[in-house]
């Protein structure tokens, strides 16, 4: 080997080392980026996220009708309640450990619902809500009550008054809880639709279908779905499932159900393929043995084949959950981008991934909170993928 050859070979090898290092660099950069930007907000109090707190000043006209609601039994002893105002307050702490006062309960007939915005922003639904932080209640003829005196004092001061100058309060901003709950709902609903259909299809194609043109056609029709970009599925959700759910449920626009149905369609090929792979691994001797003992196809499928294919179905489920958590393009159309805190299946709200999209398309983009959500998504998705890797390895070893 000439030295020139060696040199050239070294250069060539060096190129592959360099190329391979790019993957490592990219992955580390993504991790570094989301952790540097997002870890500041990452804690269990994320639900109580006051990063982008919006401050409100609510005033009120002379009150004539007071609340009639007695203190609900669901509220604990640590909640101080004003019957006149239908308002329950509770002492809390923010992340820095300062005393804050949170709204624990607002009665349906509370006069506080008649508050107007003193800053004259046109908020859609202005008013004091559960979870808000009260920073001050100011009166006309006595000192303002501040959080440092505690919730009990604030309620007592308020209870004796029939009017106040203004209530200063803030919402906590970035309500991730809503998106988290939505994501869990959507995962459940999607799997509810996609798993049975997907598994049944896989069983049919693998156990029952004869080898003929029709079977091949069905197979290729399902196969084509894998190549369709997710935004096209989103359009389908918009054109098919949104009108469908609006017509037959109480929904009036894109909702969790239409989103879940759309996701179910996206996941069908994934689930079908993964289940089929696991069915294929089950040795034919098992089937023959079962049939020889007098079981029919159905019994064989349910009692012999499916139990052996369970790890594959598990894998399919895990992969599906990962996809659901990460999916954004389709859901922007099929669920919508409204971040909400009170979740219902027929209402608007948005999953974690779409929540990121909403944050990024806002002016100005909230990169910190987006990164925090990204950390949560990344950790879940990567754990799921590694689990799948381990499960399938174990699974392959079973039959070897």
């Amino acid at each position, binding site marked *: 080997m000439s030295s020139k050859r060696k040199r050239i*070979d070294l250069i060539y090898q060096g190129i592959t080392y360099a190329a391979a290092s*790019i993957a490592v660099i990219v*992955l580390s950069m993504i991790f570094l980026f989301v952790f540097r930007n997002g870890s500041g907000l990452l804690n269990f109090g994320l639900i109580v996220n006051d990063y982008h707190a919006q401050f409100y000043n609510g005033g009120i006209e002379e009150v004539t009708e007071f609340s009639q609601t007695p203190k609900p039994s669901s509220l604990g002893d640590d909640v101080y309640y004003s019957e006149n105002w239908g308002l329950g307050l509770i002492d809390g702490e923010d992340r820095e450990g300062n005393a804050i006062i949170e709204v624990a309960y607002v009665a349906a007939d509370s006069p506080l619902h008649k508050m107007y915005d003193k800053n004259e922003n046109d908020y859609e639904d202005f008013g004091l809500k559960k979870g808000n932080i009260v920073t001050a209640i100011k009166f006309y003829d006595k000192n303002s009550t501040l959080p440092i005196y505690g919730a009990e004092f604030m309620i007592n001061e308020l209870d004796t008054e029939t009017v106040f100058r203004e209530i200063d309060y803030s919402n906590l901003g970035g309500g991730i809880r809503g998106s988290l709950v939505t994501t869990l709902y959507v995962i459940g609903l999607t799997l509810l639709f996609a798993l049975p259909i997907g598994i049944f299809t896989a069983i049919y194609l693998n156990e029952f279908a004869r080898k003929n043109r029709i079977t091949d056609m069905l197979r290729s029709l399902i196969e084509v779905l894998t190549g*369709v*970009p997710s935004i096209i599925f989103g359009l389908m959700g918009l054109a098919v499932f949104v009108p469908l759910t609006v017509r037959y449920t109480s929904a009036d*626009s894109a909702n969790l159900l239409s989103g879940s149905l759309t996701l179910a369609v996206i996941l069908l090929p994934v689930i079908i393929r993964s289940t089929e792979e696991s069915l294929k691994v089950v040795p034919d001797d098992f089937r023959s043995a079962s049939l020889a003992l007098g079981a029919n196809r159905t019994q064989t499928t349910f009692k012999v084949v499916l139990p052996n294919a369970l790890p594959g179905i598990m894998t399919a489920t895990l992969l599906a959950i990962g996809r659901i958590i990460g999916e954004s393009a389709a859901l922007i159309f099929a669920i919508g981008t409204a971040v909400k805190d009170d979740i219902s299946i027929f209402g608007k709200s948005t999953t974690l991934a779409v929540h990121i999209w909403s944050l990024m398309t806002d002016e100005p983009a909230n*990169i910190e909170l987006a990164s925090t959500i990204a950390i949560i998504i990344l950790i879940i998705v990567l754990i799921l993928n590694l689990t799948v890797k381990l499960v399938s390895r174990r699974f392959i070893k079973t039959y070897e």
Partner: protein
Amino acid sequence: MHKIHELYTNMREKLRFNSRKERVDFIIHSMFLLATVVSASFIIIIVIFIAQEGMIPFVTDNDGLGAVNLWRFLTGFTWLKGTAFQSNLYAVGYIIINTLYVAFLSLLLAMPIGVLTALFIAKIAPKKIAEVLRTIVEMLAAIPSIVYGLFGAGLILPWIYEFAKIFGVQSKGGNSVLATVLVLSLMILPTITALSEVAIRSVRSDIEHGSLALGATKTQTNFKVVLTSAKSGIFASAILGVGRALGEATAVSLVAGNARSGPSFGLFETTSTLTSTMLQGLKETVGIDYDIRFSVGIVLMVVILLTNVTLNFVKKEVGNVDVK
């Protein structure tokens, strides 16, 4: 008539079960078949519904605005002349060009990196390192597109903004062709790497041995023989990569900059792709602005289909290496 009767009696025969077990068997069997038909029908539903919605702007008069001219729509270089809801002068010609342009530029960037990484994992790296790298590539593939979009918007855009300043170009906050290409390259890199690796590992070892026996070095063999033999599989990975790049939506829309006219070839110009256009103006739920999104969807599907067909044709021309 006679035939139908025969069919009917046949069915009767078939449906006369001798036992409960048989009836259950039949019902379950039908249920499985139904599930399969449902699964297979979705692609048809997608095509029909999107075509139906997407045709509306061209065949109706759009509440008095007049029908959109299809030829103009496909060849025009401005997204919308006039104001929304008061004009039917939509066009996606430049967007089609932009979409293909950024997709193929991304391929140009990701392809060599991906293939070389695959070669490294399959042939050069020690076993342990290869395993770690494979896991890293899988992780990259598992990262959702929205996270890539966040990464692009949060890190790549500011960099490009500064980079453009050096050249004296004032870019729109970094939103540009370059940003789009970079983000897309990152996203298709794992796809290309993983599939190329499979292709490289499936190269028959006797071809390699032949090359080595002729006195070629290991490296020469890897680059000249292995890559050539795997080129069909590598090309297949490229086709998949382009498909992904064309259909990628959220990440692109966060870094493209939403150009209203074009086409944009300069690296620091803002651009817009078919997918990012579809994600614009989400507020409308009715009227031409809503329907036109489906028209863009049809265009996207056609573009992806044509690109796939073309590339598969090219792949056939490139051919397979067969050593007999």
